[in-house]
């Protein structure tokens, strides 16, 4: 089936099986490999993207749900080569180590800050509970997000 939808504000058109995962459309059809597969079952959050402004696990979204939707991925975050303040904060505060959870973690953080301007550490921790990280132990990530919120 053909689907027309927006990815990072650009209109895209793909022809795929209706059950193709959004994750695979992004990575294989559109070459946007910033979104990662960590578990394939919606548990780890490495594949998290925004769909119509809402945080979703792209490994759980079938193509048939995409028509007319607007998807934002990590690639769409920086504008004209300039890093988003969250991305800057992650670099400065050690929010990324191996980097594999980072795309999903940053999209989840973006979703949080869209809804809450100055979240506390506890609120950030709760919001990010769907994004697993094995390297950082989370507190550098929470610090990175809290400092952006403080601005």
């Amino acid at each position, binding site marked *: 089936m053909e689907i027309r939808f927006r990815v990072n504000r650009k209109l895209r058109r793909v022809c795929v099986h209706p059950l193709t995962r959004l994750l695979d459309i992004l*990575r294989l059809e559109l070459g*946007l*490999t*910033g*979104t*990662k*597969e*960590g*578990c*394939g*079952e919606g*548990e*780890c959050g*490495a594949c998290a993207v925004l769909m119509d402004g809402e945080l979703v696990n792209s490994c759980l979204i079938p193509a048939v749900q995409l028509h007319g939707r607007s998807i934002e*991925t*990590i*690639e769409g*975050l*920086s504008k004209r080569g300039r*890093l988003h303040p969250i*991305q800057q904060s*992650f*670099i*400065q*505060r*050690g*929010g*990324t*180590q*191996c*980097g*594999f*959870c*980072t*795309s999903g973690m*940053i999209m989840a953080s973006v979703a949080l800050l869209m809804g809450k301007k100055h979240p506390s550490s506890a609120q*950030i*921790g*709760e919001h*990010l*509970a*769907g*994004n*697993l*990280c*094995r*390297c*950082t*132990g*989370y*507190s*550098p*990530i*929470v610090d990175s997000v809290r400092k952006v919120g403080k601005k």
Partner: protein
Amino acid sequence: MRTKHIGERVPRREGGLKVSGRARYVDDWTLTGALYGVTVRSPVARGIIRQIGYPAGTPWEQFTIVTAADIPGSNSVANLEKDQPFLAVDRVQHAEQAILLLAHPNKSLLEKARRAVSLDIEHLPAVLSLESSLAQEQVVWGHNNVFKELKIEKGNVDGVLNNAPVIVEGEYWTGAQEQLYLETNGMIAVANPKEGVTVWGSMQCPYFVHKALMELFSLPMEKVRVVQMETGGAFGGKEDYPSVLAGHAALLAWKSGKPVKMVYDRGEDMAATTKRHPSRTQHRTVVDRNGKLLAMDIDFAIDGGGHMTLSPIVLSRGSIHAAGPYYCPNIRIHGRAVATNTPPHGAFRGFGAPQSLFALERHMDKVARTVGLSPVEFRRRNFIRQGESTATGQRIRESIQMEKLLHRALKETNYEKKVRLFAKQNLKAKVKKGMGVSCFFHGAGFTGSGEKRLASVVAVEATEQGKLRVLASITELGQGAVTIFTQIAADALGISGQDIEVAQADTAFVPDSGPTVASRTCMIVGKILESACIELKQTLIQNGLLKERYTSNAFRAACKKYVKQHGQLKSFAQYQQPSHIQWDDEKHEGDAYGTMAWAIYIAEVSVDLSTYEIRVDDFLALQEIGKVMNPLLAEGQIIGGVVQGIGYTLHENVIWNKGRMVNNRITDYIIPTSMDVPPVRVIFEENPYEFGPSGAKGIGELPLDGVAPAIVNAIESATGAAINRIPVTPEVLLEAMENTNE
């Protein structure tokens, strides 16, 4: 030497790529015309392969099929022993063992085909636990299931035991632990008899993979190339396993004539690849009337799985750490690594020490209680001091002051006050609180003569722009290797970090600097890098192209000039073992490590006796690590390690059934989330190690050694339940509370 970069919170150099999704991991690459590859595995733990069938209904002629018969060279994975085949021939030695490989351009059809292969395997009785392997109910490896046995002896343990009025005994168990790097194992291979083999993938040790492929294909070294891609976490889980996966991908590429990509899904990665060795430690301890240790008799056993792989080295490290940071004149440590019919266990951050130190630090609490001393006072009386010798007879050369570290840790956590307060509150409270302490050390680098045998090399060369390129086979895994090397090189040469490039770990271009394991990257390889830089600088100075003091610009100009005159500017340096290190591998006696990092960890826990939930409310990680090269990265290592340790202690439970991990999904193998972690306070002390770069010691594995005992000691303090195995799930706590109340 002025240090401008070392000691600073330098953000990681590749951070920009990682936060913008531009860092490319192996699955982010596609080669035109590539096939996907999968592995057909044994569902049976031990058996004889009677027949492999390819039933009608699948277009088998479209598939590339590889069995052991297709292997051009040696069907054994290069390691300490040659007992592990790449592909099973006629017997199965463990569940999930690889039997054959399939490749096809269509991933979905490939998966259907994998399930369609019919395997007729005659079951043989299997050994599925550490206990039954030790008991030799069935012999499944060698003549007695023992991969390796060792004995460390100091003084006369039996002499003391035979005359002791009181012997404190204890038995402690730790379970398997899955590394759960967020990026699963993956490789891309291109291979043919004419050009050789090239693999790109997720790995810690390019030269381990290189050696394995040379032997698998009977190729000379220049016909094999191994390139490390951006790697999404490893923690030891990508130390030896990548050799197997690289071999598999390359075999399919060799037979099909096409590039092959193999990336494991999470379920396969968890079930089939290595995990931390389960362990059992038995302690028998004698103390004198003043609470000083007189004798320690320790039996340490680890479950190595179906093949030997790295088990003897894990056994060695675990055994050497088994008596901890204490002085005792009579010590015996009997170590055994044994076989079971489960997927081979392997490296995981700590490498045997988290297992033996869990046992030790739980046992020290028990001994303290038995002789009527507080856990803190007992340890204080027994800390090893400068000039005293360890279990292996290593004399402590540095001015270690564990008492000072302990004092600071107790102050920072308000320990004494809280212990008294909780004791009072717990009488009435439904949620009990407790404090627990662990004291430990971790020796960095390969044990004994290991580093000498590795003889690691690092090279540095001038680029066309006059920058410095670092050439080492050390891999960035997220720990910050690229950044630390940049800092070391920048300060060794007195130039800007921007003028340093760290080359990708590609065996075509970098020398063998040894594997990225054993907390050796900064302390051992960083030192070699420093030497190589100094050598290059001297070359320029001796050629009159640089004065003793110079600017970054002058350095760049000098490099360019030298290259113009001579064609190339490249310096090599090799590991030099400090002369004081003397080690007897047979007797496991002498200087096991160049130096140790020392630590005191303190946990504060809450235990809810309505729900049996355990929460770590606060955690202090205090350690002396020689020199803090980069506080941002160092804190990252400690906090990340502590949280992995919390998982090891409370959440991560591998459930086995007939030799297979059955909860091989992130859904039901639980690792800590952002809601499961306490504030982790990190304190560093410095005491420069003379042979580390700027005095640095290794730190990557240290945190894993002390988390579990601190937490379980705290649980006992809170509830009175003496739990001696991890993980302590609510079910385990429930059972322990029932036993305590009986």
